[in-house]
């Protein structure tokens, strides 16, 4: 009797496990997490012409900004990318601390070059820090098809807004050579596996227009312009006028 009872119990247990298994499979990541890469390909900073008489502003030194990210799904899985982070500063650098956290005592000032540094999330995470910030923006959008990336495809995403800028930040802009940082995150489409995209720091050289506008452009050709959708995030490139 005992043998049959044990056998029957094990069979029932196995049946329960088998029925619940799809839930587990959906939650377990198998193999390497999918890779996604987001790089700033266009950046615009415009110093706003606010006069001292404008009321309601704490600081009259305000810039409007536009970052265009080229987000590429490097994997063979469809992804949803809904979290975007960008920043620009005089200096941005990765921390190589073994625990992945930025060591505040390390000097941030580094020599500018036009190199691009890329890190992917590892066991110890990715640490980074900045000094003399110009603007920093992170945005998480609700999930939807607008942020759906097919396997091995790229899409442009814009982040726009306005921000106060410090004297040091403005000085960095006028010096033409700054660093920009980008990172995106999301998850596998119809799965629970979270993804943390590449952390990208690159040195960029700005073009200054009339001392008030600062542009970095690796996206548009001479006869092209950007068309930004009215939700402020979708971007298409338009040729001609």
């Amino acid at each position, binding site marked *: 009797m005992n043998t049959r009872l044990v056998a*029957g119990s*094990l069979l029932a*247990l196995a*049946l*329960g496990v088998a029925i619940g298994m799809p839930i587990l499979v959906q939650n377990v990541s198998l193999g390497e997490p999918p890779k996604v890469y987001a790089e700033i390909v266009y950046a615009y900073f415009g110093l706003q012409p606010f006069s001292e008489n404008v009321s309601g502003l704490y600081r009259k030194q305000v810039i409007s900004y536009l970052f265009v990210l080229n987000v590429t799904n490097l994997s063979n899985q469809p992804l949803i990318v809904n979290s975007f982070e960008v920043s620009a500063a005089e200096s941005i650098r990765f921390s190589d601390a073994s625990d992945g956290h930025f060591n505040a005592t390390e000097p941030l000032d580094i020599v500018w070059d036009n190199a691009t540094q890329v890190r992917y999330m590892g066991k110890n995470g990715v640490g980074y820090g900045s000094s003399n910030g110009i603007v920093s923006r992170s945005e998480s959008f609700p999930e939807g098809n607008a942020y759906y990336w097919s396997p091995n495809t790229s899409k442009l995403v814009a982040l726009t807004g306005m921000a106060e800028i410090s004297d040091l930040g403005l000085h960095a802009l006028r010096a033409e050579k700054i660093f920009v940082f980008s990172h995106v995150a999301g998850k596998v489409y119809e799965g629970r596996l979270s993804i943390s995209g590449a952390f990208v720091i690159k040195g960029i050289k700005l073009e200054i227009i009339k001392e008030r506008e600062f542009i970095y452009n690796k996206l548009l050709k001479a006869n092209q312009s950007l068309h930004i959708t009215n939700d402020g995030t979708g971007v298409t490139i338009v040729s001609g006028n």
Partner: protein
Amino acid sequence: MTLPSGEEIEGTTFKVYLYLVKEAKPAGPRDVMRGANLSSPSVAYRHLQKLESLGLIQKDINGEYVVKEKTTFKGYIWIGRNLMPRLVFYSFFFLGLLTIELSVVTLRFIARESIEPELVFLTFVTGASSALFMIEGAVLLRRLRASNP
């Protein structure tokens, strides 16, 4: 085969029936008395007659009793010639599900992902179901073992 509505066998009659099913061969009152630990052949005969009147057993040409067909008992399931409480198997089924749910909760906790309240509630309900079925099943199993010759 099921017992006629309102009829059920229990106590010594149930014990005699389980003995006959387990033996799976014709048995007389003396065999039943010995096998089911009864006080006398006449006691065994009385219970055999009752089972015969319910249509669960029949006499063969030698006048010995054999099981006609295994009947179903509420809450029990036949596995071969052994009667088992169903609730124990239900309990193990839910235990299997609980194993999966706990694995998912653990994985999400390790990955620092969100653990939805619905998942926690579901895991609790599955665990409670498994525990309740196990307790009730164990009670039935003990009763069955007490009846088993």
